């Protein structure tokens, strides 16, 4: 084995501390801003640590009193949840049968390649017709309309993940069940889908993360509290005339909380999902 000199050990620990600081400092600052009294944030020299922790902004944003900053925020939170939920369910409903079909019948694999190739399209290449189409259907500024548009992003990605998932389930297991007299759908329901449950969960979480993160279509296709998503609400706050930067930071913390929790809990599955695609790609 390689000899590790004390100098090398110290060097590695110093680098690790530096890396930890680079990762944590901006995130910690976002949280500190959210609980610092406004006077501390406007002080010169800047007060890095609040004199007293002030959680009132969280209360303010999560209150549903009419015409408050909280009403705009909570409605966008609800819209984001609804849209991410609907788009994820729809994407999985499309991806599971399609992913299985491509996995078991390589002859039609080229059709999935075409679907995945749409990843290269910049959203601006679809935006104008989608805008006109949604407007024609009366689905502008509507959570269903936005969830439908999100399928352009979610469906190819989840299908690709599901296909790799089914690839790792040996088809011999399905064949054995069929020989025992189970029909195709019975086999899928009893054998294949339970085995694919972890992949389905990973795909669903990826889909939720993608929908939660989406900004471009939401910016274009929503205009008020009926459909505006969290990302648009935060961009509004950041670009608007809000004088309390702590409030913007608080909105950021709240919007980041669900994906960060998903990321931490699902760390292993998310990374293996990403790298399995990477290695096979």
């Amino acid at each position, binding site marked *: 084995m*390689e000899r*590790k000199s004390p100098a090398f050990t110290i060097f*590695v*620990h110093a680098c*690790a501390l530096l*890396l930890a600081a680079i*990762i*944590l400092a*901006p*995130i910690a*600052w976002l949280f500190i801003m959210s609980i610092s009294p406004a006077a501390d*944030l*406007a002080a010169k020299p*800047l007060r890095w640590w609040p004199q007293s922790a002030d959680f009132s902004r969280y209360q303010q944003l999560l209150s549903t009193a009419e015409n408050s900053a909280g009403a705009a925020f909570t409605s966008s939170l609800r819209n984001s949840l609804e849209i991410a939920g609907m788009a994820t369910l729809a994407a999985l409903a*499309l991806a599971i*049968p*399609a992913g299985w*079909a*491509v996995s*078991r*019948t390589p*002859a*039609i694999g080229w*059709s*999935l390649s075409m*679907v995945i190739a*749409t*990843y*290269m399209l*910049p959203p*601006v290449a*679809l*935006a*104008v*017709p*989608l*805008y006109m189409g949604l407007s024609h259907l009366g689905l502008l500024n509507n959570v269903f309309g936005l969830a439908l*548009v999100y399928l*352009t992003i979610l469906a190819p990605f989840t*299908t690709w993940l599901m296909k790799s998932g089914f690839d790792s389930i040996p088809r011999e297991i399905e064949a054995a069940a069929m020989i025992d007299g189970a029909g195709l759908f019975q086999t899928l329901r009893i054998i294949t889908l339970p085995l694919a449950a972890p992949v389905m969960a990973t795909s669903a979480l990826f889909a939720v*993360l993608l929908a939660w993160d989406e*900004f471009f279509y939401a*910016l274009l296709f929503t205009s008020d509290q009926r459909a505006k998503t*969290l990302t648009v609400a*935060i*961009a509004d706050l*950041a670009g608007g005339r809000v004088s309390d*930067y702590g409030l*913007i*930071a608080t909105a*950021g913390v709240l919007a*980041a909380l669900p994906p960060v929790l998903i*990321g*931490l809990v699902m*760390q292993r599955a998310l*990374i293996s999902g*990403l*790298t399995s695609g*990477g290695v096979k*790609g």
Partner: protein
Amino acid sequence: MSSTWMTTRAWLLMLPLLVVMVAVIGWPLVDTVGLSFTDAKLVGTGGNFVGFDNYANMLSSSNFSRTLVTTTLFAVISVAAEMVIGVLAALLLNQQFHGRAILRALMILPWALPTVVNATLWRLIYNPEYGALNAALTQLHLIDAYRSWLGEPGTALAALIVADCWKNFPLVALIALAALQAVPRDITAASLVDGAGPFNRFRFVILPYLAGPLMVALVLRTIEAFKVFDIIWVMTRGGPANSTRTLSILVYQEAFSFQRAGSGASLALIVTLLVTVLAVAYAALVRKSAGSAA
């Protein structure tokens, strides 16, 4: 079971996905192509056929060439920095030190942070009056007076690139780390016995294992960086003086701010073509590097 029936059944299972994809991607794309040959406005009547006028006007405009340069700068510098920092971080995380598991878990944080939240966070950090960067640099006596990092054409693009790198290098690091852990220990041990120095060991023993996954990360990140919209829109809206205007921002302005759907569509397709050319060129590279690694 006959293979024809198997194939038919597979197509039937694919059908819902294909129908939806045609509706939300295929048809809009074809419609964008149609629009790009007209002078249609965003609202109102269909517009008149103008042939390749939109393309000619766009390609010859100084706005386009300047925006193309800005986009290329943004994409090349941020992706290159993400790759280098990401690999360095992965090499570090592959060493043994106290708290390694925690640090590795922390790496997921910037990646999980929504892009808009990341952009907002850095916008606050760069704030010209109350921002943390100004405060820190002043307190360390590195600058004399507060600066408007996002308000000056000289620094805005660099400030955006830093914010983009911070969010995206951890993903490169995690992908590289997964690849590093696949390097067989006896190979690195053998290279030590053979007297390979650290640099040669990285170049000839470790890098071949990283090449495949890193190429894929490079392709995906470059395509994304070329299409970049969110972080720039939230932080600068393409300003100041259009110094951070990328292609996607230009299309947005053309099609939605100025409501010129026709010329916006032509520009969007030019961007699509550029991204496709990039992706195809990269795909050839990936195949080549995979071939040499095998």
